[in-house]
């Protein structure tokens, strides 16, 4: 009984003490599973993690890691600049156009991101515990990311609602948070204005590449101003692609102002005000040097990139695109095959254009002793961007050849890469087709006769699925700034300056004979960007802003004559990817040709579609759902 009493007393005392706590204290328990806003914005490392998440979710049209719908390699695979050697992706070369919704960013994904950046900015500026320097830098970085995102939106949609603070759902009138589209020029002005406003708060440090730096902001400003300028100038050629309210289209009168801004921004970077940047020029083989620029993360050429790291975020670009015969991972290789359309565009070292010589004047094949002879004397960027037949990867040669051609012109090959067969008149089976193809329809080997080299990681194991590659995706680099400067100078009537800027980029590629001011034409500008910036996510937006897209992708099939003529001419149509297939001559009766190589232009059998770019494709569709939810959004033109 006593025992029971004492237990009861203890319980009562304990309960009583607990009960003495104030209700507010008792209920106010710090959560143990997440950090509060105040906690996060009291510590620079924690605030940086919020920023890191925003950095990680930036949008790129092409990216090495891609997303679940579009793996990295495939985001580079369109526009007839390459052939997709994966059966599930043949649709890219079999469709006859793009839906209006192509290249859009999901509307709610986009504005969720904008909202989160706005919240970040509001919380950062309200923070009292962060050191001033930290807070200012974070603030500038947030504004940089927001401007970058609006730039991505305006490239796709034209004018979009410009939301610069976080919105709260109103209890009654939903129309107070429905915003109309800003004018296209307003968004470009915003991007340019933000860059100018924040550049002073960002470090002018060339070693800062994966976070915003002063040069990154100015490079963004430079590109945005150039885009706006060319839309103003060349938009006049497609009056159908505009809206009366200016949501799409920029008045031609603004072109010169934008070109001047682009040029000034470029000059700022070139002058070294934003840190010391320069072209990657480490000597040695020029093609290797060009390829290494994309591998070497310490290069002084890259200004801003998406970084990858072992143990953190890696990508499978190398896994997907390495040469099949030298693959680290059986069954994963060769998906992205550059097309002959692109390869033919590389100049000879005397600055002239000539198709790769496959036949002579009387249409007889030209015989080459070595596979690479046909590519001799070309722009070094060819072998730096494209892995040619007999090209080296990790010190070994790729094995690209399509079969034997006999004296009578007939072909001995196989439908399986690397197969052996006995040649006519012999009994010993020999290999009759390269282990890397090309064989029509045989995925993961090249079907165009080329592999991609840009961004392919030579590091051991980088092609393994489990390991992945850590090569960075460069968003802004110095060579583009030079080309921007060249374009802006040319458009402002200073072709001499344009030549000076462009010649620097060309000299690095072995084109050491400088172009004179009189050589600089619009065609030259377009061509130089296509070559220098191939497979870096520029071609779509460049063709759009010059209003060339509907001419280049005009919905008519591409013939071999189309591929070999009008080289270097802007707006030449290119709607289907072609390949160049090497054949080995087997003709023991004729020692002059036996064992030599001939080449045939071949359109991969799977490439049955043709690209057709409609006026309605210039600006991606704003989804019907978004318009239904916000009737103030007006529809894109021609949709």
């Amino acid at each position, binding site marked *: 009984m006593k025992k029971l009493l004492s237990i009861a007393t203890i319980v009562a005392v304990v309960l009583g003490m607990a009960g003495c706590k104030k209700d507010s204290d008792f209920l106010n328990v710090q959560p143990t599973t997440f950090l509060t806003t105040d906690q996060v914005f009291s510590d620079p490392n924690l605030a940086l993690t919020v920023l890191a998440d925003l950095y990680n979710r930036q949008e790129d049209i092409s990216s090495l890691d891609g997303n679940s719908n579009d793996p990295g390699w495939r985001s580079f695979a369109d526009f007839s600049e390459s052939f997709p050697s994966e059966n599930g992706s043949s649709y890219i070369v079999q469709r*006859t156009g793009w839906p209006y919704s192509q290249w859009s960013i999901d509307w709610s994904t986009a504005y969720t991101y904008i909202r989160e950046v706005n919240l970040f900015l509001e919380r950062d500026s309200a923070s009292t515990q962060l050191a001033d320097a930290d807070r200012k830098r974070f603030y500038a970085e947030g504004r940089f990311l927001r401007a970058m995102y609006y730039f991505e939106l305006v490239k796709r949609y034209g004018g979009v609602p410009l939301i610069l603070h976080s919105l709260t759902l109103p209890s009654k009138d939903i129309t107070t948070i429905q915003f109309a589209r800003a004018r296209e020029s307003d968004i470009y002005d915003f991007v340019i204005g933000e860059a100018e406003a924040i550049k002073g708060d960002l470090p002018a440090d060339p070693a800062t590449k994966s976070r915003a730096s002063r040069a990154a902001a100015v490079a963004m400003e430079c590109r945005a101003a150039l885009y706006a300028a060319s839309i103003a100038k060349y938009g006049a050629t497609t009056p*159908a692609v505009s809206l009366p309210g200016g949501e799409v289209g920029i008045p031609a009168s603004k072109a010169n102002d934008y070109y001047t801004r682009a040029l000034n921004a470029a000059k700022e970077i070139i002058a070294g005000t934003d840190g010391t940047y320069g072209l990657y020029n480490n000597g040695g083989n020029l093609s290797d040097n060009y390829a290494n620029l994309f591998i070497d993360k310490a290069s002084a050429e890259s200004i801003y990139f998406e970084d990858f790291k072992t143990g953190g975020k890696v990508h499978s670009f190398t896994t997907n695109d390495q040469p099949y015969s030298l693959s680290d991972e059986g069954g994963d290789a060769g998906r992205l095959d550059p097309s002959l359309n692109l390869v033919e565009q590389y100049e000879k070292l005397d600055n002239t254009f000539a198709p790769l010589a496959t036949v002579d004047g009387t249409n007889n094949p030209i015989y080459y002793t070595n596979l690479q002879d046909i590519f001799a004397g070309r722009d070094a960027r060819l072998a730096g961007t494209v892995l040619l037949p007999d090209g080296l990867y990790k010190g070994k040669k790729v094995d690209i050849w399509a079969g034997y051609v006999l004296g009578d012109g007939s072909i001995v090959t196989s439908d399986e890469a690397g197969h052996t067969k006995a040649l006519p008149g012999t009994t010993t089976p020999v290999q009759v087709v390269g282990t890397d193809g090309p064989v029509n329809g045989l995925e993961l080997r090249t079907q165009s006769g080329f592999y991609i080299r840009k961004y392919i990681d030579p590091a051991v194991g980088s092609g393994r699925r489990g390991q992945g590659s850590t090569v960075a995706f460069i968003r802004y680099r110095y060579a583009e700034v030079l080309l921007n400067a060249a374009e802006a100078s040319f458009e402002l009537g200073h072709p001499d300056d344009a030549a000076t800027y462009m010649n620097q980029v060309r000299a690095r590629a072995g084109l050491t004979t400088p172009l004179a001011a009189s050589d600089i034409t619009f065609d030259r500008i377009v061509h130089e960007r296509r070559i220098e910036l191939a497979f870096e996510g520029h071609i779509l937006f460049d063709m759009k802003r010059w209003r060339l897209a509907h001419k280049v992708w005009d*919905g*008519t099939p591409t013939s071999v004559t189309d591929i070999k003529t009008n080289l270097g001419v802007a707006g030449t149509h290119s709607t289907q990817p072609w390949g160049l297939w090497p054949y080995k001559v087997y003709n023991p009766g004729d020692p002059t040709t036996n064992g030599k190589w001939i080449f045939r232009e071949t359109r991969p059998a799977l490439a049955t579609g*043709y690209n057709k770019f409609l*006026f309605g494709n210039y600006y991606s569709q704003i989804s019907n759902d978004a318009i*239904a939810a916000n009737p103030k959004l007006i*529809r894109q033109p*021609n*949709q």
Partner: protein
Amino acid sequence: MKPSIYLFGVLALAAVAGCKKDNYPAPGDMLTGHLLYKTDTIQVERNQVPFQIYQYGFGKVGPVSSTFSQDGTLSAVLFDGTYKIIVPNGQGPFMWKQTAGGNPDTVNVTLKGNQNIDLQVTPYYMIRNANITISGSTASATCKLEKIITDANAKDVERVSLYINKDQFVSGGDNIAKKDLAAADITDMNNISLSVAVPTMTPTQNYVYARIGLKIAGLEDMIFSPLQKISF
């Protein structure tokens, strides 16, 4: 064994009831129509000229989008109801009526059962008297261009093209041979002639389909002459 019979009965009832509850009958009204200029059908390229059907009164509004077939016909299977049809701005080789605000004017359709509608539009040009013949291995075509819109909205000819194909889809994208005649080379709009070599076809066939197309400057959709099947 009786309970299992009841069970079957219950299940059968549930199954029957279930079918009724969450399934709607499929739309059954066939809406068909033609793009017409007076009494002539407007011929276009397949899958290129879109039309949009709107229905109001059900919350969010979005269009049902589809395209005219190459002979200028439309078809859609819909429920009974009231619909509005438009052709979006800038589409088609013709002018679709616009409201004062510059938006496409709607054609109202009250649908109850199958219905055929004619969509009257004003083309910029019509291709008249198209005549395509084959002699030897050359296809020759003659035609006349009639300029319909001559006011401030008038547009120039960019080129006239002759297309031939193995099957009945004939256009800039679907062809085995084509011949372009640029506007600069047209001397007489009333008397245009074009010819193109008919390539060898595998497997061989002794007929081709052909159409003459007209590209109008500043518009992306071409207008065509009626499809002709030519045997040789």
